[in-house]
């Protein structure tokens, strides 16, 4: 048994690594950029794209703090046309554009010098000072050639065009931008500082085209980054602030920079109490019901309960939840229960004793709890009934009856224990349910538990939270299966793990 346990726990490790890796891969494929989200002050399209150097710098620091300036994993697959330091490019759109360009043209050195020159051209916009241009562009009588508005518009347009060039790899789009910028710069002489850089980037672009070597993108390459990568730091820590998952530190949330551990702990008890209570109720109802309807097999009672249970089993939980809200929390019909949340913030007092808290929260708990319970209840009673019917057909039940044992004893002692096996499997799911919560039920009733938290973190692409939840749920599921296996052996001595 011990040997079996040790073997099972050893298998945990690669499985967990695989789960966390899967979550990691899903996370990095997400298009949203967490830095843009966190530094909401930087508006990309608005404000004439004039992201000041200060915001750029804060973003840079933020990236560094979040570890986003590192490669994602120990290695990556690509072709020899790919640039191996692409992860250093801060802007997600820029790095996507760079990757696509080097895929088309093969030489990432040329691509990056063209791209760098475009960046220089864009930065040179900040050298233009509106008032100076206004003062300098006056005719002999001192009348301005351009209004301030016009100057501003022209600079904005040029900035916008160059910025959109930084985000596209489509040769037709690039060509049309080149020609429109050409006319713009020939019409307005005061843009000459940008024009100089722009002409340079045009040269580099043509250079890149002439040296096109698409064949390079057909030759695979493995790029090795070593242990300085996001996944490694997530797992083992970076030796500074982050301790790593192996030491129980899941990092910080992207949304509010809170440690994920505290965030999870503050929510998990809600989901845990829901799943514990609902499993408890489900067992209390379904075990006697299952046994009784198996005992009364093919009677009217059995047929009716079977149909009811089957109907409940096929009811989607969100339908039941919304129906309950409609019926019992609707100002037009019955307003017995509150619509959402788990407590009334105006009345709730954290200094209350446990029972006062429980009494205050009871009405909030009832509807969600019914929704939580009915599905597992239906499932459990079906399993229980089939299990007991199966056991009633066994020889030892006939023997027990034949030797004159009372019906009560036959059912409670011989049949019950043997039909418990399938029920244990459900018990194994209680831990993962606690942390995974039920996304749907918690969303319907606006319960601030883990399910709701996961849902919102997915919508807000809070990767560290998602990866943490995946890993924890995976771990708990495996623990659950293990506990179930041990319980099997306890309930049924015929099962042994050797």
């Amino acid at each position: 048994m011990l040997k079996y346990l040790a073997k099972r726990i050893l298998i945990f490790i690669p499985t967990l690594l695989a789960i966390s890796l899967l979550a990691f891969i899903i996370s990095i494929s997400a298009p949203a950029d967490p830095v843009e989200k966190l530094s909401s002050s930087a508006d990309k399209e608005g404000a004439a794209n004039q992201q000041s150097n200060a915001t750029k710098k804060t973003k840079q620091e933020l990236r560094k703090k979040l570890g986003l300036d590192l490669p994602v994993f120990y290695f990556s697959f690509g072709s020899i046309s790919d640039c191996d330091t692409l992860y250093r490019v801060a802007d997600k759109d820029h790095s996507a554009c760079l990757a696509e360009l080097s895929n088309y043209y093969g030489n990432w050195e040329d691509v990056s010098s063209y791209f760098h020159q475009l960046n220089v051209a864009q930065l040179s916009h900040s050298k233009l000072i509106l008032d100076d241009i206004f003062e300098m562009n006056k005719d002999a009588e001192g009348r301005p050639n351009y209004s301030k508005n016009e100057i501003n518009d022209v600079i904005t347009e040029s900035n916008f065009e160059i910025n959109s060039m930084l985000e596209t790899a489509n040769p037709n789009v690039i060509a049309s931008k080149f020609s429109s910028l050409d006319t713009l710069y020939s019409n307005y002489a005061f843009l000459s500082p940008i024009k100089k850089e722009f002409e340079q980037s045009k040269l580099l672009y043509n250079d890149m085209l002439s040296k096109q070597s698409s064949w390079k993108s057909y030759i695979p390459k493995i790029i090795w980054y070593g242990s300085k990568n996001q996944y490694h730091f997530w797992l083992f820590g970076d030796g500074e602030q982050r301790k790593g998952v192996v030491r129980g530190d899941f990092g910080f949330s992207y949304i509010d920079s809170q440690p994920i551990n505290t965030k999870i702990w503050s929510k998990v008890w809600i989901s845990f109490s829901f799943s514990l209570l609902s499993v408890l109720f489900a067992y209390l109802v379904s075990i006697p019901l299952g046994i009784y309807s198996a005992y009364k097999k093919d009677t009217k009672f059995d047929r009716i309960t079977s149909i009811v249970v089957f109907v409940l089993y096929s009811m989607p939980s969100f339908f039941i939840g919304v129906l309950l809200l409609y019926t019992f929390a609707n100002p037009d019909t019955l307003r017995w229960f509150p619509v959402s949340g788990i407590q009334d913030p105006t009345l709730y007092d954290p200094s209350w004793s446990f029972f006062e808290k429980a009494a205050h929260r009871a009405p909030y708990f009832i509807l969600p709890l019914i929704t939580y319970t009915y599905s597992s209840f239906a499932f459990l009673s079906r399993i229980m009934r089939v299990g007991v019917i199966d056991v009633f057909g066994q020889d030892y039940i006939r023997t027990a009856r034949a030797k004159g044992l009372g019906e009560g004893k036959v059912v409670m002692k011989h049949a019950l224990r043997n039909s418990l096996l399938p029920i244990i499997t459900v018990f194994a799911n209680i831990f993962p349910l606690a942390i995974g919560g039920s996304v749907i039920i918690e969303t319907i009733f606006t319960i601030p538990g883990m399910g709701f938290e996961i849902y919102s973190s997915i919508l807000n692409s809070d990767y560290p939270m998602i990866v943490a939840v995946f890993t924890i749920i995976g771990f708990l599921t495996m623990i659950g299966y293990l506990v179930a296996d041990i319980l099997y052996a306890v309930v049924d001595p015929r099962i042994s793990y050797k």
Partner: protein
Amino acid sequence: MEQRDFSFKKYAWQQFKKNKPALISLYILIALVFIALFAPVIANDQPLYCKYKGETFYPAFSTLVNPSKLDSVVNPETGLAEVLQFDITDWRKLDLEKVMWAPIPYSPDKGDRYNREYVSPFDEQRYKNSDNQIVAIPNRLRHIMGTDNIGRDLASGLIHGTRISLLVGVLAMGIASIIGVFLGALAGFFGDRNLLMPRSKYYFTLLGVFLAFFYGFGVRKYTLANAFTSGNGIWELVISLILIAAIIVGMRLLSIVFKFGWLAKEVSVPIDTFVSRGIEILNSIPRLILIITISAIFVRSIWLIMVIIGLTSWTGIARFTRAEFLRIRELEYVQAAKSLGYSNFRAIAKHALPNALAPVFVSIAFGVASAILIESSLSFLGIGVPDDVVTWGSLLNLGRQEFEAWWLVMFPGFAIFLTITIYNLIGEGLRDALDPRLKS
């Protein structure tokens, strides 16, 4: 020898017929398929047939072929031509001489602007007649199940939602069954020790898989992305998949050249361990959360949702298939096939697979029910499904936001419930019919 033409199929069908709930469910399912197939004819805001100023039109059918069909009629009195663009004409306003409306005369995605803001099926409903007056609606044009906030007809939404729900079941479970049966059969038939191949073939296959993904997806990723944005992504995807298959087969053929010395020695491939670990990993992540996460990354598309559900739902089928194959591979007829020198492929495909499919069908039937449940949960949460696609789940979600619109909760909820129930009942019927061991 009393039953001369006994076949298992016939026997199973007889058994299935005895199960009345399952049989009724099958009939309901056939009816649902019928509704789904003929949805544009059953619920359409254009008349099926009409006569307008002496000319005969079949708008509902014409727009099926050409969505923006134009036609014109000449007014005999004034001699002026009136242009009708079929899909944007308000046919109810026209003074039609003869008309035959669809049974539900509304389209799911077009709002009726005279019946906005949640009109109940029993409320007074209005419309604009040919004299440009807004009057109470005639019974023939009533919204029999009410409308939503922008006046879309619920009954029509339900009819067209049937298509999506049934498609989810077919497509998602189709993908899941292909993956599940394939992997489960390999794992169960060969186990960890029996899939033998020369080292050259083993390593070349692994290399082939790597290269295939590199050329199929890595190199072509921009081609694929561009194709998906311009609308013909499916074809590019098929080309990619063919490329992948060709590269893997090619590498396996190439491996024959290198079959010498150390490379020619046969080794066993631990296929069972690979598959079982894969199942364990996928099972350790709650399916709904996994699907929500993946679909939050990509562009919202109902097809993508179906594919994602399919790609994450194969574990149950694989487990059943594996268990069946573990049992079957020891049976005499498979042993006989092996000792007759038949190839492994033939033993699997011709001898083992037909006998393993019975429990797989059962789990596919239950799987369809859960795929439909997941799709409707996703649309209920508003994830992954585009806003202009009307599904049962999205209709139910509209009802959740408005406490007075009970019809938006009851009807879609019942539709989802009905579909899930019939699939579950069919699954039970199949299980009883196909597995005689359960029959006493």
